[in-house]
């Protein structure tokens, strides 16, 4: 990519390695590479999903964003700047790593990881944030707000804000500020104000509510940098466009390296941005299974989970119609997952659509299954994944074993190829994992010690974990930032 002079004409064509010819897969090379999906429609609907279910006060801002984004996404100056940032700042293209020792647990399949964990800031979230930060500057606003669950989107937003000289406020559920204290500290080091949210379940969904309240109050000066493919139009389509680089790159990398497409593409799904990011390029490839792994928590049958499509029903939440976890009164049910980044009772509308038309399938992975896969990748390959991404790894173990036991899924004598989006790295999860596995004073589990996984369930945290810490005290607050509720009372 370094010497490439030709600018990509659109976001869709913006893979950082050229699409390689694929002699063995004529249909793959002859199709219109990188075409933008025909959905959503002009008003943001993916079939019956999506749309805009927001107060009228936000419509003007959403219209402004839509218009500015549609102009920006085909502007050569933006595309050049975005490409430069992705290459020089994020470190794209991210590599593909084959993990043969991990794959020994996957029924004979080959497993290839798309290494979004190696991006600057440690996850795929930076892809979207750089695009939205450039859009913020384009519409002349000086302040950004964001919601965050695991903290990865908050860190990415704080990073982009620091890079581009924007004031930044991040809303984070109080529960999550405890689970992800490291990311709270990172955001503050980057100059962002972190506001712990104490309403409702004190997790991601409540952080989104609070961010919307801030936005409706301060919309003249503030842009909302939304972190996933949910929310009102244009967010689902815009975030998809910024994240599709994952799949565009991976598809080209597989064709170049293997001369073929993968049999299955797997990604974890909370709101669903990393999954849409890797799925989009493969949606037209009919032979490629797309599998989203939802957070099954304690098990969908227990009711304590975050498997929105598996265990939910269509409804309206956070500005769009999509599947959601709700009770008989239409109240949002609090979700449960060991993974803060997947602990969300909603899901992006495009996933609901892909599910209903049968193009993608969604299945749950429990906390225990995800943590088993987490430990396995650490020990077999020397890669500590985010717990979110470990759900996708667990899905690869399941599907690989299913295909292996059926003797199907590959091409002729070749084993099936599973492409897993390793959406983030696990540095932020070390304390959670230590508590789960009962580490600290105890010894690490070994391959032969299957019981360690079970024994670690519900274990006390190891020494050095301050459960009572108030991560929000002493926040490095940005003088320009105005907290939404305060501003509202002053208005």
């Amino acid at each position, binding site marked *: 990519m370094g010497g490439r002079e030709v600018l990509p004409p659109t976001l869709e064509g913006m893979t950082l390695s050229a699409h390689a010819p694929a002699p063995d897969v004529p249909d793959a090379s002859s199709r219109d590479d990188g075409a933008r999906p025909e959905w959503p429609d002009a008003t943001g609907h993916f079939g019956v999903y999506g749309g805009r279910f927001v107060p009228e006060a936000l419509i003007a801002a959403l219209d402004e964003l839509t218009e500015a984004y549609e102009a920006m996404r085909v502007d050569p100056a933006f595309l050049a700047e975005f490409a430069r940032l992705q290459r020089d700042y994020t470190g794209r293209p991210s590599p593909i790593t084959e993990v043969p020792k991990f794959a020994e647990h996957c029924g004979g399949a080959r497993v290839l990881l798309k290494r979004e964990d190696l991006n600057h800031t440690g996850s795929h979230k930076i892809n979207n944030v750089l695009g939205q930060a450039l859009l913020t500057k384009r519409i002349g606003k000086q302040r950004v707000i964001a919601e965050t669950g695991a903290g990865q989107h908050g860190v990415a937003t704080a990073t982009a804000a620091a890079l581009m000289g924007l004031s930044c406020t991040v809303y984070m559920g109080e529960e999550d500020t405890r689970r992800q204290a490291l990311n709270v500290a990172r955001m503050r080091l980057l100059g962002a104000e972190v506001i712990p949210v104490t309403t409702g379940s004190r997790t991601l969904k409540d952080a989104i509510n609070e961010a919307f309240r801030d936005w409706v109050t301060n919309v003249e000066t503030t842009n909302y940098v939304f972190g996933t493919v949910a929310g009102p139009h244009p967010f689902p389509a815009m975030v998809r466009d910024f994240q599709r680089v994952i799949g565009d790159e991976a598809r080209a990398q597989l064709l170049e390296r293997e001369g073929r497409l993968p049999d299955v593409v797997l990604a974890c799904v909370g709101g669903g941005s990393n999954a849409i990011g890797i799925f989009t390029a493969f949606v037209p490839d009919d032979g490629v299974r797309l599998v989203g792994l939802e957070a099954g928590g304690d098990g969908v049958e227990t009711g304590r989970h975050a498997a929105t499509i598996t265990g939910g029903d269509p409804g309206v939440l956070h500005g769009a119609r999509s599947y959601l976890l709700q009770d008989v*009164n239409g109240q949002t049910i609090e979700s449960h997952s060991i993974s803060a980044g997947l602990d969300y009772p909603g899901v992006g509308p495009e996933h609901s659509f892909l599910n209903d038309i049968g193009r993608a399938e969604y299945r749950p992975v429990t906390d225990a299954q995800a943590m088993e896969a987490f430990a396995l990748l650490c020990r077999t390959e020397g890669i500590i994944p985010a717990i979110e991404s470990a759900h996708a790894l667990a899905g690869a173990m399941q599907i690989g074993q299913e295909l292996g036991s059926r003797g199907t899924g590959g091409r002729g004598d070749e084993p099936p190829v599973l492409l897993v989006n390793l959406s983030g790295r696990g540095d932020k999860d070390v304390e959670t994992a230590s508590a789960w596995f009962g580490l600290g004073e105890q010894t690490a589990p070994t391959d032969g010690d299957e019981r360690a996984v079970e024994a670690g369930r519900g274990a006390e945290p190891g020494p050095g974990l301050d459960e009572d810490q108030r991560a929000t005290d002493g926040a490095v607050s940005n003088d320009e930032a105005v907290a939404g509720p305060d501003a509202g009372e002053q208005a």
Partner: protein
Amino acid sequence: MSALQERIAAARAEGRAALVAYLPVGYPDVDTSIAAMVAAVEGGADVVEVGVPYSDPGMDGPVIQEAVDVAVRAGVGLPDVLRAVSAVAEAGAVPVVMSYWNPIERYGVDRFADDLAAAGGAGVITPDLIPDEAGAWLAASERTGLDRVFLVAPSSTDVRLASTLAACRGFVYAASTMGVTGTRATVGDAAERLVSRTRAVAGDLPICVGLGVSDGDQAAEVAGFADGVIVGSAYVRTLLEGRGPDGVRVLSEELAAGVRRAKVRA
């Protein structure tokens, strides 16, 4: 003519603005919340916004959130709301339901329209449903004759003001400021500017102003340029502070006096 529009016109005929009181069903419990609504009517409210508890009230500030959270956790739902609607109608005010969209969609739009009409409800205010997304509700309200109240905001363009008002029936809810519900020291002139812009395309549709009004003086100020004055958080705070239905009645009397002090436009 719709029941809401008729009641607001009757107030205007008395040379005053209408008083619209918001209270959520289920705080501190369903029966007390209904008693508080009746007390609001006895104190002088012309219209009661019967609030549907919702887990994710994105347009509400901390006061209403606190009360509604209790009701959500207690499992209060639309059957309780319909009971409150009937009680308000019996007390002599016009009941209009205020609901975020998902509870109604979950209940079934047509089923809710039928049940609301049967309970004596005039219509529904939908803070997170814009006419663009309201196809099922427009059809159901047309079929049942219910009023549909959409919101306009200071940020609404002239084009959106016109299209939103074309979809409204009963009245239009003008959000006085950019922000969430809650009492404010001043209502500000943004509300008056919005009402003036809205009036230009409203025809004879009444314009009620909400967000930020908490006492008689503010009610008088808003009544000087609006057809109705909507008060929410101040009523809810009365209950949060433990002053009960009696406190609600006293607040209604103060606000009812306020809407009568103003010089109402001709």
